[in-house]
C-alpha cells in the first residue's frame, strides 16, 4: 500500500504546502455581489488559519465532530479545513435536509459545533436544539436577518476570524502552536465522516482518513493529468463524497481553482463564465441540460430546427468516432466542422462546457444515448464508478477507451473482483475506515482482508475488459418466466426522453414489466403550450390523455430498442402509468442525491403496482406528502394505466452477446 509523504499527508498540511508553492495562484473564487471574488492559496491559508484559531478559542479540539451545513461557499470549505487543522472531524450535512433528518445525523455524530450558511440553517438547528445537547456553538456565514437572534450560542464567521486574528496578534506564539498542532495530525487520522444517504434505511457515517482521500485524489489527478491549471465549479452538495473529493481534496492535491456559483439556479451561467476544464456531474445534470436544449429548440424557428437536427444527426453518426480519433471520411469531417461551428460549439458554450477537457459522469449509470449525445458533440465525457466507501474512485474510463455501457477499468491502486454471485468487490487505499459507531454494518460491507462489497451486480465486458454494472445486486431480478429484469437499465433508457423525468420499472417476479413515469414539467409543459393543452397543475397535466399518448410513444420506442437486445428483449414494458405527483426526497422517494428508493416507492404505491397486474385500467391512490415547510398532508388521485404492445424480439442477434451476459 502506498503511503504519503508525512509533510503533506493531511489536508491542512497540503494547504500550507500550496500556499508556498502556488501562493499567488487563485485557489477559490466565489461569485458574490455580482463579481467573482478571488482568493489565492496564500489568502486561503490566511483565512483558514484565522478561522481555525478562532474555532480553537471557541473550544473546538482534536477529535471533536463539527458539522458544515450550506451551499457551496468558500467559507464552508475553509471551515472544514480549519476544523481539520485542529484535529476535529467535519461532518457535512445536506443543506436541503429537513430538520428531522439533520437531527438524526448530528446526534449520531455527536457534533459540538456547526458552521452554517445562513438564517435558514440556523433556524433548523435551533428547532432541533434540544435534541443536540452537545452542540454548543453555531457559526454563521451570512448575517442577514440574524441580528436580533440570541447570540449566546451564535457567532458570525467574521467574528470567529476576528477572535483568531486578535489571538494571533496578541499572542506571538499562537501561530506556531497552531501549526505545530496541525502538524501533529497524520495521514492515518480520521479526516471526515460522510453520511451516505443510502438507498435503504438510515444513513451511515462513512469514516475516511486523510490517506484514503488524499491517495485517491492523487491517483485520480495523475490518471487524468490534472494540475493547478484546472478550473472546476463546486455546485454539488457539500455532504456528498463526490464534492468532497472533487472540490476539496483533489483541488488541494493538484492545486487547482474551485469556483463557487452565485446561487444554485445560476450554476449554468456561472460555469459558463468560469469555463470549467474538469467537470464532474451525476447523469441528472446532463439530462437536464439535454432537456433544456430540446425544449428550447422546440421553440426555435423551423430553419434553425432543421439545421440543428441535421447537425445533431451528423454528431450522432460521426462525433464519437472523431473524438476517439478514428478514421472518418473527409466529408464527415467537414460536416462535423460545420456542425461544430453552427451547433456543437455554441451548444457547449451555452452550457459552459466548451473548455471541459475531461468530464465525468458518476453517481449513477447514465443512459447510453445521453452519453453518446454529449460525446457526439465533442465533449470528452467519461464514466466512472465510485462509492463513498472507496473515496470515490473504483473504476474510471481512460481516455480513448470509452464505451457508453461500461464504467471503465480499475482506477490506480484499486483491485477489483466479481464475486460468485456476480457482485463487484474492490480493495484500494481509499477504502474507508468503517461506519461511524456501526461495526455491524461495517462488517457486512468490509471484509477483514480489506475487500468492500459494492452491492452492485456487474461483469467484465469481454470485448474491452471494462467493468459493466447492471444494477444494484439485489435489484436485479427475473420476470416470472425467468427473463432477466434489470429495472435501472430500463429506467435509464426511459429517462433519455426529455419528457420523462423519472421512471420506476417494476417486474421482478411478475409476468411482465411495467413502469411508473414522472413527467418533466418543463419539457411537457412547453409541449403543452405549443399544442394547446390546458392544465393547471402538475397533477392535471400528468393525467392528460394526450400526455399519455406522448409518453406511450416514448415507451414504445424504448421497447423497440429493447427488442433488439437479446438479453433484455423479454423485459419490454407492457403497461405504464404516469404518477400524479413528482417523486420527492422530502417524501423519502428519492435520496438526497436524487436516487430512486425503489423499495420505498413500491411500498408507497402498492395499489398502483397491484393494478398493473390485475388488469385494471385505472387505480385510486392516496399518498402522504410533506410540504416544503415541513407539514404533512395527503393527496389522492385516480391514475390511468395504459397498455402497450411489445415488439417482436429481433431473433438471433448475436450469440456472443448471450455468452458474455
Amino acid at each position, binding site marked *: 500500500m502506498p503511503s504519503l509523504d508525512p509533510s503533506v499527508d493531511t489536508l491542512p498540511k497540503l494547504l500550507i504546502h500550496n500556499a508556498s508553492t502556488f501562493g499567488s495562484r487563485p485557489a477559490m473564487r466565489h461569485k458574490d455581489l455580482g*463579481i467573482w*471574488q478571488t482568493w489565492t492559496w496564500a489568502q486561503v491559508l490566511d483565512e483558514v488559519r484565522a478561522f481555525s484559531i478562532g474555532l480553537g478559542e471557541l473550544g473546538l479540539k482534536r477529535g471533536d465532530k463539527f458539522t458544515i451545513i450550506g451551499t457551496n461557499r468558500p467559507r464552508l470549505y475553509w471551515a472544514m479545513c480549519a476544523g481539520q487543522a485542529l484535529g476535529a472531524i467535519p461532518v457535512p450535512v445536506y443543506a436541503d435536509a429537513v430538520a428531522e433528518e439533520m437531527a438524526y445525523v448530528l446526534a449520531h455524530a455527536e457534533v459540538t459545533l456547526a458552521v452554517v450558511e445562513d438564517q435558514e440553517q440556523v433556524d433548523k438547528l435551533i428547532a432541533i436544539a434540544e435534541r443536540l445537547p452537545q452542540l454548543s456553538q453555531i457559526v454563521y456565514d451570512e448575517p442577514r436577518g440574524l441580528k436580533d437572534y440570541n447570540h449566546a450560542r451564535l457567532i458570525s464567521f467574521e467574528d470567529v476570524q476576528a477572535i483568531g486574528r486578535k489571538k494571533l496578534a496578541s499572542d506571538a506564539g499562537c501561530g506556531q502552536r497552531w501549526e505545530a498542532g496541525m502538524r501533529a495530525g497524520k495521514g492515518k487520522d480520521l479526516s471526515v465522516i460522510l453520511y451516505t444517504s443510502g438507498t435503504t434505511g438510515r444513513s451511515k457515517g462513512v469514516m475516511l482518513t486523510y490517506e484514503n482521500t488524499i491517495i485517491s485524489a492523487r491517483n485520480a489527478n495523475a490518471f487524468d493529468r490534472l494540475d493547478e491549471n484546472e478550473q472546476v465549479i463546486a455546485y454539488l452538495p457539500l455532504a456528498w463524497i463526490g464534492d468532497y473529493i472533487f472540490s476539496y481534496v483533489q483541488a488541494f492535491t493538484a492545486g487547482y481553482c474551485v469556483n463557487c456559483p452565485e446561487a444554485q439556479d445560476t450554476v449554468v451561467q456561472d460555469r459558463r463564465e468560469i469555463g470549467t476544464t474538469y467537470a464532474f456531474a451525476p447523469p441528472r445534470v446532463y439530462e437536464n441540460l439535454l432537456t433544456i436544449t430540446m425544449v428550447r429548440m422546440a421553440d426555435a424557428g423551423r430553419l434553425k430546427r432543421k439545421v440543428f437536427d441535421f447537425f445533431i444527426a451528423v454528431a450522432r453518426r460521426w462525433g464519437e468516432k472523431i473524438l476517439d480519433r478514428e478514421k472518418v471520411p473527409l466529408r464527415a469531417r467537414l460536416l462535423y466542422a460545420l456542425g461544430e461551428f453552427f451547433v456543437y460549439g455554441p451548444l457547449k458554450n451555452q452550457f459552459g462546457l466548451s473548455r471541459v477537457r475531461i468530464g465525468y459522469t458518476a453517481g449513477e449509470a447514465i443512459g447510453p444515448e445521453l452519453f453518446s449525445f454529449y460525446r457526439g458533440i465533442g465533449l470528452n465525457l467519461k464514466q466512472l464508478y465510485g462509492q463513498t466507501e472507496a473515496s470515490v474512485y473504483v473504476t474510471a474510463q481512460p481516455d480513448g477507451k470509452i464505451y457508453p455501457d461500461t464504467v471503465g477499468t480499475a482506477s490506480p491502486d484499486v483491485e477489483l473482483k466479481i464475486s460468485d454471485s456476480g457482485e463487484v468487490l474492490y480493495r484500494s487505499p481509499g477504502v474507508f475506515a468503517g461506519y461511524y459507531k456501526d461495526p455491524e454494518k461495517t462488517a457486512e460491507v468490509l471484509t477483514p482482508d480489506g475487500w468492500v462489497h459494492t452491492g452492485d451486480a456487474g461483469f467484465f465486458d469481454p470485448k474491452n475488459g471494462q467493468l459493466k454494472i447492471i444494477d444494484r445486486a439485489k435489484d436485479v431480478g427475473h420476470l416470472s418466466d425467468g427473463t432477466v429484469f434489470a429495472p435501472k437499465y430500463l429506467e435509464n433508457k426511459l429517462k433519455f426522453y426529455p419528457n420523462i423525468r423519472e421512471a420506476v420499472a417494476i417486474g421482478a417476479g411478475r409476468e411482465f414489466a411495467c413502469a411508473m413515469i414522472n413527467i418533466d414539467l418543463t419539457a411537457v409543459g412547453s409541449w403543452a403550450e405549443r399544442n394547446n393543452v390546458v392544465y393547471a397543475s402538475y397533477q392535471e397535466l400528468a393525467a392528460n390523455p394526450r400526455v399519455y399518448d406522448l409518453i406511450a410513444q416514448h415507451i414504445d420506442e424504448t421497447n423497440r430498442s429493447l427488442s433488439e437486445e437479446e438479453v433484455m428483449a423479454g423485459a419490454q414494458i407492457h403497461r405504464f402509468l404516469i404518477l400524479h405527483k413528482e417523486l420527492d426526497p422530502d417524501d423519502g422517494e428519492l435520496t438526497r442525491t436524487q436516487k430512486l428508493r425503489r423499495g420505498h416507492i413500491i411500498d408507497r404505491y402498492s395499489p398502483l403496482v397491484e393494478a398493473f397486474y390485475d388488469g385494471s385500467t385505472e387505480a385510486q391512490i392516496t399518498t402522504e406528502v410533506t410540504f416544503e415547510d415541513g407539514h404533512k398532508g395527503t393527496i389522492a388521485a385516480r391514475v390511468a394505466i395504459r397498455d402497450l404492445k411489445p415488439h417482436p424480439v429481433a431473433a438471433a442477434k448475436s450469440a456472443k452477446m448471450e455468452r458474455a451476459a
Partner: protein
Amino acid sequence: MLYREVGQYKSSYAADMAVFPILQDRIGIAVILVIAYVVFPLIGNDFLLNTILIPFLIFSLAAIGLNLLTGYTGLLSLGTGAFMGVGAYACLKLTTIFPHVNILIWVLVSGLFSSAVGVLFGLPSLRIKGFYLAVATLAAQFFLEWCFIRIPWLYNYSVSGAIEVPLRTFMGVPMTGPTATSLTRYLAVLTIVVVLTWVASNIVHGRIGRMWMSVRDMDLAAELIGIRLFRTKLLAFAVSSFYCGVAGAMMVFLWYGGAEAEVFAIDQSFLILFMVIIGGLGTLIGSFFGSALIYILPIGLRLIPGNFGVPIRPAAAEQLTFVIVGALIIVFLVVEPNGLARLWQIGKQKLRVWPFPY
C-alpha cells in the same frame, strides 16, 4: 453563434462595468478600427473616403450629439444644424485669429462655443417640455441661421458670404484647404470621431449618463433622488451642442472645404434627427447606424440604376430615392420603432443564445 463566452468572467467591478464586457465585442471593435485605420486608407479612393466615409463619420458624430440630448436626456431638439453652424463659424474665426494653432485643436475648441450657445437656447427647458421645447430650438435654428448670413464678421467678410477654408497644416501635412488629401482629412475625422465617441460612451455609462436617463425616464423621480433637473438638462445641452459643434466644424473644414450658411439650415437638423431616431434613441451605436442608413442609403440608391443599367433618368431616380427613403423610414418605424440599434441588439442577442431561440 459567434459569441463564445465561456471563460469570460469578471473579477472586478471595473471589468464588469466596462463598455464592452464581452471579449468578442472587443475583438469586433478592434477589427472595425483596423478596417477604419488600415484597410480603408489602403483601398479607399476619393469617392469612398470623401463621399462616403468622411460624411458618414461626421454625421455620426452630430447624431451622437443630438442623441445625447434627445435620446439620453429626452429633450427634443430641431436646432442641430444651427449648433453645427456655430461650431463651423467659431472654428473659422478661431483659426483666422490664431492661424498658427493646430486646426484640429480649433475644431475641438469650437465645440465649446457651440456648447455655450446650446446652453443659452437650453434655458427655456427649465419650463417647457416636449414639442414645445422643440419649438424653442427651432427659434435657435432660425435665429442662428440668420446670424450666419447677417453678420459678415462671422464669415470674415468674404465676398461670397461663405466660409472659405484656409490651408492649415499639421507637421507640414496639409489638413484643411484645397491641398489636403482625402486621406489626411479622413484620418483626422476618424480620430476625432473615435475619441469623442469613446468620451461619449464614458459619459453615458457613468454618473452623468444615469442622471440624463433618469431625467428622461421620469423627471419627478430624478428630482427626488437629488438630481437638479435644470442643471442636468443644461449640461445635456452643453455636451450635445459640443458634439454638434465639432461635427459642424469638421463638416466645413475637413469635408466640404468651404460652405454657405445654407448647409446649416433646418434640413440639416431634420436629417440628423432622422439619423438619431432611425438609428435608435439612447444608443451610441444607433447614431452610426442611423447615419449610415440615412446618409449612405440614398447614395446607394442613386448609384443602383446606373450600375445595373436600368434606364432611369437621374431626376426620376432622385425622386424615386425620396419616395423610397420616405417609405423606408415609415417601414423601419413600423418594423422597429426603437431603431436599428434595437435590431442590432436583438440580432446580437440571438447570436449570443444561438442555437437557442432565447
